[in-house]
């Protein structure tokens, strides 16, 4: 069983190799290769999860021949294994479920490059989850940016190029700040491995030395990562980016890429700054306020939107707000709720994007609400999938969305001053979510004049049905049997 500790490194190297190989293969072979790759990574992550869950320990995997303070390491624990499992499963279902639109959107000659980019993205996400070294984190943040720009750009219609330029500019600003923060930390401490950094920072903070550079580094790194994940004042690239990409890419970008950055940020808070230092610095209050505003303003923008994809994109901004609110509320219950919500959102958002694409295709590729009247009758299953996704976003039991709202409420009761505002903002944002999702549901189910549908053959629907059923089942299982998952998150937060 301890052999399974080699799996993360194998998975990362294999994804990088597959990415290069896919660039040379024909489309179909590249597609099969990525599907097999993601399946294998999911299976190996499950094995690691079982092993680390059973032993209840965290392992440090040394890479190369340089030991502890100099070399590069991976950190393998139950939390990391859980997130790599979830990320690879969601990636798998995005590629499967969006395959019909991918065939339409991609230029045949270069469509194998899409799978090359997706494999690269998988490698970057795995590294962001597993790495124990700050500079490796920076390099793979940039790789993640390039790969996500690639999968966004691959659809050559409308404003995708402009959208990707805006996305790149925001991302580059974010990673530039992150890089400078990392360099400042390296200057002060002389370390790049996370455990050594934490020891050094704790000592320096206790003695009151180098307060200004430490604080500056913390601010630079947090701001950099929150720009990249799309926290409230920096969320303006989201609707363009998610609205114009092919549905599989929208699902991947909103469900996984931004979550990879958030996971890295949480890792830095716990493993590098240390919770004590971070929660003394006051930065968590900034996250709290921005998350708070993001929840409200994201939802209001979503309500004012007439395009179904842009509405889902603004709803993403609101959900990112929830996650940062959780980080800001408290370091135990709040962060556990935030991590659970990362999983909820990763499972739900791709489902919404994929089913919205099917719904819009049922009325001939239209995206405006007024043109989507009654479309759920033409494609019954997509309507059902969209309904389940909406219910999960609103937070109706037995979906995962309910559990994460419940966890946010519990965390509010453990925070003294922030209790009342947290509960109020949860209630208000739930009402807002309900308004815009209920309005969409009424639109797609209400068919006043019974226009004739353009039928999609059932066989073409199969991959979508498969992946939507899979996402719905994951959502419901995690929603009904949530206790083991929540326990795992809380336990690993103590170990973190």
């Amino acid at each position, binding site marked *: 069983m301890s052999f399974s500790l080699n799996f993360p490194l194998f998975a990362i190297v294999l994804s990088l190799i597959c990415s290069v190989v896919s660039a040379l293969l024909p489309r179909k072979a590249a597609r099969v290769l990525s599907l097999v790759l993601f399946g294998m990574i999911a299976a190996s992550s499950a094995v690691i999860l079982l092993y680390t869950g059973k032993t209840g320990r965290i392992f440090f995997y040394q890479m190369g021949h340089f030991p502890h303070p*100099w070399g590069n390491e991976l950190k393998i624990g139950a939390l990391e294994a859980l997130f790599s499992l979830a990320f690879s499963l969601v990636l798998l279902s995005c590629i499967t479920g969006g395959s019909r639109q991918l065939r339409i959107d991609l230029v045949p000659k270069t469509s194998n490059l899409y799978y090359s980019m997706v494999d690269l993205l998988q490698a970057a996400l795995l590294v962001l989850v597993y790495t124990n070294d700050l500079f490796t984190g920076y*390099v793979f943040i940039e790789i993640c940016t*390039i790969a996500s720009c690639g999968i966004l750009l691959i659809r050559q219609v409308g404003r995708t190029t*402009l959208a*990707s330029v805006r996305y790149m*500019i925001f991302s*580059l600003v974010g990673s530039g700040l992150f890089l400078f923060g990392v*360099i400042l930390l390296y200057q002060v401490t002389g370390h790049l491995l996370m455990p050594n950094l934490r020891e050094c920072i704790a000592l320096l903070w206790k003695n009151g030395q180098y307060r200004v550079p430490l604080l500056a580094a913390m601010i630079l790194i947090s701001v950099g990562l929150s720009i990249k994940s799309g926290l409230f004042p920096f969320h303006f690239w989201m609707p363009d980016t998610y609205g114009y990409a092919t549905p599989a890419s929208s699902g991947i970008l909103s469900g996984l890429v931004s979550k990879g950055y958030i996971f890295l940020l949480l890792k830095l808070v716990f493993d590098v700054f240390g919770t004590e230092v971070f929660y003394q610095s006051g930065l968590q209050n900034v996250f709290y306020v921005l998350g708070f505003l993001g929840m409200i303003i994201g939802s209001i923008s979503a309500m004012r939107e007439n395009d179904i994809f842009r509405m889902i994109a603004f709803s993403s901004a609101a959900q990112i707000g929830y996650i940062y609110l959780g980080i800001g509320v408290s370091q135990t219950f709040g962060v556990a709720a935030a991590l659970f919500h990362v999983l909820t959102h990763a499972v739900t958002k791709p489902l919404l994007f994929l089913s919205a694409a099917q719904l819009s295709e049922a009325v001939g590729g239209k995206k405006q609400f007024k043109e989507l009247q009654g479309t759920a009758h033409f494609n019954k299953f997509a309507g059902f999938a969209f309904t389940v996704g909406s219910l999960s976003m609103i937070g109706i039991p037995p979906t995962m969305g309910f559990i994460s709202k419940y966890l946010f409420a519990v965390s509010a009761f453990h925070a003294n001053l922030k209790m009342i505002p947290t509960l109020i903002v949860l209630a208000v944002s739930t009402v807002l979510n309900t308004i815009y999702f209920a309005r969409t549901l009424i639109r797609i189910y209400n068919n006043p004049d019974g226009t004739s549908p353009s039928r999609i053959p059932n066989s073409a629907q199969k991959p979508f049905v498969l992946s939507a059923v899979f996402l719905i089942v994951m959502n419901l299982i995690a929603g009904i049997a949530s206790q083991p998952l929540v326990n795992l998150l809380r336990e690993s937060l103590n170990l973190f």
Partner: protein
Amino acid sequence: MLQTLWNNRIECVAVLLFAVGFFTLILHPNLLKKIIGLNIMDTAAYLFLTSIGYIRGRLAPIIVNGNTNPESYVNPLPAGLVLTGIVVSVSVTALMLALTYRLYKAYHTLNVDEIYMLSREKLEREEGKKEESE
């Protein structure tokens, strides 16, 4: 105060350059100048890293004349990080240049605001056409 600034003059210049690059990247409307800003920003970060990695009087970390005393060499790691960083910024710059080329071919301008307006007009024209045909 002035003495501290003078002692850290390279770091101060690096921070200034970083700020120049950062604001050019965010605020300048011209896409090419944005890319130049990006490069200034990244280079400033590498200047900072190089300057903290160099210690006066020590040699590059290549063993000369059998001298294995670690005190006579500098730490090779910062230089390694700079190399990695340069590779990253070259690839990002290449991608941005490719995107800029594509935008210029479509809109015949490098000004982001103009491109944004043109694309909005184009979108409205297409929607108008759709409604007319219906």
